[in-house]
């Protein structure tokens, strides 16, 4: 059966082409230009400028939209055109231009035509001279990019208001600004056979485990992908080998959080073209922590973390528990609630489980619609959602008022811990079904299975549920629900690999 499915899939896809061996730069300029034109085709944005450097023919190639034209003129073209004295041999000319003529610092030599093509489409100007077996690339990027903005998904009350952007170089600068120490390392890699997306592995050299860094780089290298357009493409290659509903690869939009994670010995991975950085290893407990916890006093941080944890439990278990109690375990309802619940449930036509699934599904539809809808009609969605789900459904007797309260509490609670919203949504539905079919017993078993699943995950040697299991009293005392004050916390830094079994 699997072979048949595989065949069906293969018929509509093609395998990622194997990497071809690189083509070296030819000594003949014409051959090089032909190669360029063959590879780049008739793309209008690729510009070829023919010139002469001394007696040697030369070509300057650039991608119009990716380069800053002013920089191209000032740093590359004008200085080359204004050259009066120069060596005669092509390769010496290249070196002369590199060392004495071009005013930019960002320069590199390419010995492979494929690298040169990649540089052109990345916003560099490439200079080819007839007779030289290498080309020179000048960094004059000026592609359009977004300005640094507020974090959209991780809003903090007292933290910095800057967030990562799509340009990984800007992101690197955001990190550098916060950690002006030579220990910060940024190691570049290319992933994606066609997209050749640049991925930067960032870490603190004096605390990250070198084996872990090597492992990360190795996994990224082994990632067989054609296009890499977001962090989600690379996530499966960095996750643990145990399939889990919770991911052991975190993401953040905030440079301050990225720096804090690196300071604990973790690695942060920036992907060019996406404003989210990945963090490995990422622990479950971190879903309940935020930058604000470290900017507030410890007692408030404790309160907020406990609140978040209980919100998580409410968002996962409350609908399922309500269904289980109404279907199997009515004795658990307090007497004062029982009567009202019984009266309300008696008028609805659907079984409690169906009602719960229906209303939560409806809520997810409204939420998704609100997310995708243009802002101009967003208000209409919220009004319709509130009226339809809230008032009309209850008045019409389709759902009971207590169910509405359950949905509302669940919805609000799920946004408190927005980092794990997606697995929580799925688990919520699973527990609703389990609660409706097997009651509280099923919910406890389901909880046990999820707990086992989480405990089986080990992210780069660190257990996902650390420091709760294996229990590290020191880590729990230092920074779990409770965190020490900065006078104590700041004296020593946490080493993530000390949480290994």
């Amino acid at each position: 059966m699997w072979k048949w499915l595989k065949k069906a899939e293969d018929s509509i896809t093609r395998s990622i082409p194997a990497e071809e061996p690189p083509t070296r730069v030819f000594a003949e300029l014409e051959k090089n230009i032909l190669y360029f034109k063959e590879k780049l085709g008739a793309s209008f944005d690729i510009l070829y400028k023919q010139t002469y450097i001394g007696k040697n023919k030369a070509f300057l190639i650039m991608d119009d939209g990716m380069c800053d034209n002013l920089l191209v003129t000032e740093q590359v073209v004008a200085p080359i055109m204004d050259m009066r004295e120069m060596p005669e041999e092509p390769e010496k000319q290249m070196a002369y231009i590199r060392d004495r003529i071009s005013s930019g610092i960002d320069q590199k030599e390419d010995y492979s035509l494929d690298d040169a093509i990649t540089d052109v489409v990345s916003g560099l100007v490439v200079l080819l001279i007839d007779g030289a077996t290498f080309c020179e690339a000048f960094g004059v990027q000026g592609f359009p990019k977004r300005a640094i903005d507020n974090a959209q998904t991780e809003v903090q009350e007292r933290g910095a208001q800057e967030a990562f952007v799509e340009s990984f170089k800007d992101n690197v600068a955001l990190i550098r600004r916060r950690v002006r120490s030579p220990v910060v390392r940024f190691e570049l890699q290319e992933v994606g056979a066609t997209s050749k997306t640049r991925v930067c592995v960032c870490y603190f050299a004096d605390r990250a485990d070198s084996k872990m860094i090597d492992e990360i780089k190795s996994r990224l290298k082994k990632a067989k992908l054609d296009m890499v357009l977001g962090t989600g493409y690379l996530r499966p290659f960095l996750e643990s080998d145990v399939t889990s509903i919770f991911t052991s690869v975190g993401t953040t939009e905030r440079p301050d959080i990225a720096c804090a994670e690196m300071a604990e010995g973790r690695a942060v991975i920036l992907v060019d073209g996406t404003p989210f950085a990945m963090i490995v290893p990422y622990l479950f407990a971190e879903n309940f922590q935020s930058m604000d916890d470290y900017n507030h006093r410890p007692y408030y941080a404790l309160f907020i973390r406990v609140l978040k944890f209980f919100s998580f439990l409410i968002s996962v278990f409350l609908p399922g528990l309500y269904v289980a109690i109404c279907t199997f375990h009515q004795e658990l309802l307090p007497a004062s609630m029982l009567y009202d619940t019984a009266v309300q449930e008696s008028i609805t036509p659907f079984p409690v489980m169906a009602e719960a699934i229906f209303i939560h599904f409806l809520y997810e539809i409204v939420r998704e619609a609100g997310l995708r809808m243009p802002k101009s009609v967003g208000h209409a969605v919220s009004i319709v959602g509130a009226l339809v789900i809230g008032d009309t459904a209850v008045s019409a007797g389709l759902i009971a008022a207590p169910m509405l309260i359950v949905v509302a509490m669940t919805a609000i609670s799920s946004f408190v811990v927005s980092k794990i919203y997606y697995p929580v949504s799925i688990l919520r539905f699973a527990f609703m079904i389990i609660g409706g079919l097997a009651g509280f017993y099923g919910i406890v078993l389901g909880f046990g299975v999820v707990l086992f699943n989480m405990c089986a995950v080990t992210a780069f040697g660190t257990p996902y549920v650390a420091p709760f299991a294996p229990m590290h009293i020191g880590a729990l005392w230092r920074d779990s629900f409770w965190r020490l004050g900065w006078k104590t916390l700041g004296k020593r830094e946490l080493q993530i690999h000390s949480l290994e079994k």
Partner: protein
Amino acid sequence: MKGSAKISVWQLFCVLLLSRLLSTLTFSPVGAEKINTSDYFPSVLFAAILIFLFSIPLFIQKHFFPGKDITDVAYTVSPLLSKASSISYVLCFLFFTLVSLARLEMFVGTIVFPNNDSALFIILCVAAACYAATLGIEAIGRVGTISLVLFVGAFLFIMITMADKVDPVNLSPVFYEGVKPSLTAALDAATRTGELAFAAVLLPRADGKMGKAYAAGLFAFTVCAELILFFVFAGLGDFALSQMFPVHAVAMLAEFSVFLRFDVLLTGAWILTAFIKISLLLYMQSELLQKSFSRKWNKLYVLCAGLLVLIIQVFFAGTVSDYYFAAGLSARVILYIVFVVAVPSVILVAALMKRRGKRAKNS
């Protein structure tokens, strides 16, 4: 499943403590010797002493054969003995799995779902336990640690909320009928489950010094069991012994504000603990079968063990639990002594003698 995965001794003893506390939690006067309520308190202390004495083979195994489980020790004597001991332990653990499952089924069928057929719930439990067993000892160890905290938290909460109903007047005088009833109850308690046999198989998987963890585990068991029994008998008095599950009955006394029943906490703790114990047992059976046969089919062993347990429980349900309790204390004690004390002792003595013989030959 990771064959070389390891946990700390503390995690191991957390899991074993949880397994032992399950037997206290599921204590039922059905099949147990009838004694006065207060005689249970000294019986726990006597049981702790007995457990310590029964642990002597375990200490010898750890000291003289570090990094080896009992079947590895048997292998030093002869491969055939190793295989035979593996299979006998597999059967022993299969039996304990059946007993745990039967007790869970009795609880679910009597208390949680009295109006429903419990077969479905048993199927769910075994299916979930099979999945959990395939995740390996690391997952079991970590879940055990978290679950122990939840277990203790649930119990503390129940005890605090029913503390106002505790009245020492409900207790009988200690040793009213002499010491014999306490000693009998101690023997019953000590031989109720085979954690020492589990430890004999799991020791190589645990890193660290055993002494402190063992002492802490035994002490914790004694304290927890005493507390649980005190609240049961001081709260319910003799009425506790007329209930199928006295601990559950006392949890029903717990009230707080508008919430009139906190037995749901105990139900949750029970189900979770039973699930972990069954997963551990299935895992150990798989590990032993891997040693005796092929290492390739680890998940298949778990599945087969789970299916066997399920078939026996669903189709021959009454037989297993009835056998265990109807057979009487003597039969239970003999079963325990054979697998927990006698078999390991024989293997250890044989291995030590062979080792000594080898050393004498070499010198």
